[in-house]
């Protein structure tokens, strides 16, 4: 059994692409996600009319925006925005109240809207609203609040692909058949494989957790060792999941073809979209997706700062998955040898 694990390790180390994919690719992708979802210093461009009251202009000027005072009256803000592509918002004052027109529901627009609201509340302290969160803070970036999902997503995906491809290769090249013509037990084969890849999974988990928490500075409120434990279980699930999928694929290409069925649905249910918002109770589908368990557990630890008692349910979910997939895999080897 540990001979098999040793062989898997040696084989993977000999294949530079696999090593890169397990260890380097997640770091690269996490860095990209960090840059894409991280703090933005975007300054929205807001247009007002000359006739705007002076105290409002002063208040707006104090905000982090680029303010343009248009000399003419703006009859149609929508046409104005269409004609002036660099403008994010038109903010008009009349006796009936304020009129804010934004380009489209986007992050840029909501930044502009936020700045305008801040300006308004600074003139009228009565309408001032203080926002605070139970978990996290207002100045948190999207990366801080959603980064944990990518942690589990990338970890699962990379290990899945490597394992599925390795198993497909074993099947198509006949090494699995040859191996089962020796007195090795079927369970030893699956266990050995899982153990071999677990070594890489541990290395990967340590690397990406340290990288996100200490270099990308993702806020983490909980115990990092619990995160490592979750990632390890998730990666083990990914190894066995890959092995199971390899039964349905006869080439590496077919593994890739199956990704829309195996990985992409899991991305949707991983927590990127709040499950309560999904209609027709489809959110319940998440209970059959391994990534959901991993992502939810990591969320409990990193975002909510909870401990083991909050995640044991998710961990049991993963353990159950591992057990079921292990059994399926050991049975699938009967194709090569009955006993």
């Amino acid at each position: 059994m540990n001979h098999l694990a040793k062989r898997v390790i040696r084989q993977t180390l000999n294949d530079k692409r696999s090593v890169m994919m397990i260890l380097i690719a997640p770091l690269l992708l996490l860095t990209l996600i960090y840059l894409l979802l991280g703090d933005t210093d975007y300054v929205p461009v807001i247009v007002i009319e000359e006739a705007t009251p002076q105290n409002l202009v002063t208040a707006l000027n104090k905000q982090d925006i680029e303010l343009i005072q248009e000399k003419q009256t703006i009859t149609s803000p929508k046409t104005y925005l269409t004609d002036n592509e660099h403008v994010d918002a038109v903010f008009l004052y009349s006796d009936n109240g304020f009129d804010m027109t934004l380009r489209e529901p986007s992050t840029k627009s909501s930044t502009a809207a936020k700045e305008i609201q801040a300006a308004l509340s600074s003139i009228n302290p009565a309408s001032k609203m203080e926002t605070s969160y139970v978990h996290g803070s207002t100045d948190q970036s999207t990366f801080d609040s959603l980064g944990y999902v990518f942690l589990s997503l990338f970890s699962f995906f990379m290990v899945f692909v490597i394992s599925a491809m390795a198993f497909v290769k074993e099947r198509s090249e006949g090494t699995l058949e040859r191996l089962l013509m020796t007195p090795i037990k079927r369970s030893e084969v699956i266990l050995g494989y899982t153990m071999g890849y677990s070594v890489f999974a541990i290395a990967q988990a340590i690397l990406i957790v340290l990288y996100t928490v200490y270099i990308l500075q993702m806020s983490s409120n909980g115990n990092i060792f619990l995160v490592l434990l979750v990632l390890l279980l998730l990666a083990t699930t990914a190894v066995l999941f890959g092995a199971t999928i390899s039964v349905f694929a006869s080439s590496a290409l077919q593994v890739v073809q199956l990704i829309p069925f195996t990985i992409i649905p899991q991305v949707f249910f991983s927590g990127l979209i709040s499950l309560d918002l999904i209609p027709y109770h489809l959110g319940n589908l998440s209970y059959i997706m391994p990534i959901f368990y991993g992502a939810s557990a990591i969320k409990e630890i990193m975002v909510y700062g909870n401990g083991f008692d909050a995640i044991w349910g998710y961990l049991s979910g993963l353990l159950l998955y591992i057990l079921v997939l292990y059994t399926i895999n050991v049975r699938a080897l009967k194709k090569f040898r009955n006993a």
Partner: protein
Amino acid sequence: MKIRVAGTTKSFGQTEVIRHIDFTVMSGEICCLLGPSGSGKTTLIRLMIGAIAPSTGTIHIGDTLMPNMTLLNEIGFMPQNNALYEDLTAEDNLLFFGSVYKLEKSVLKQRIEEVLKIVDLTAHRQKRVHVFSGGMKKRLSLAIAILHQPKVLFLDEPTVGIDPVLRREIWHQFHRIKQAGTTIVVSTHVMDEVIECDRAALIYEGTLIEYDTVDNLLAKTQTGRVEELFILASDQLKEGTTHEPLS
């Protein structure tokens, strides 16, 4: 070790792949399973190894009823495709398979030296298999099959896609392995190779149409070519006298 196949039938679903085969491979002989591709040779080998259980009938290796896990220690198997770990060196491949057979470290080391010498790959032991030529891969595959000194060796189309020079060399090695007391079962669809064997089992559409010493078989033909026996068998099948052995 003797291999006794008695009344063995194997069906996959509705299709009967092996039809009531009876024959005994004598200990220390090279027995050839001869037949066109798709005739059931590989299935018969898998049955004899015990990878799959027969639907009816029995198979014994020595006195052991197959399938039997422990007996796999006495069996060597060289599959049709090379079945090597291409990312590993020749030596790592041998080390791995040797450890699966739970050979003791010192024994394994010594055996690796021996088999590398037999298949003439000692100079290439540290090279990764993916740089090997087709012939080198075949030889390494054979080295793995004989690494644990099996008493019975199954070779599934070992010379397919091999040039004549290398083929002769490989057969030369089979004879050396036989001289060491190993029973060899080799499948092939190359009729010429039959003269290298002691006995031949002619398999046609899952049925054993002939089993005899090679000398006797050749004597039965007019031209001295084995093909004739297959043509006779296929004619008989067309006439409706199915599954009955010839002569």
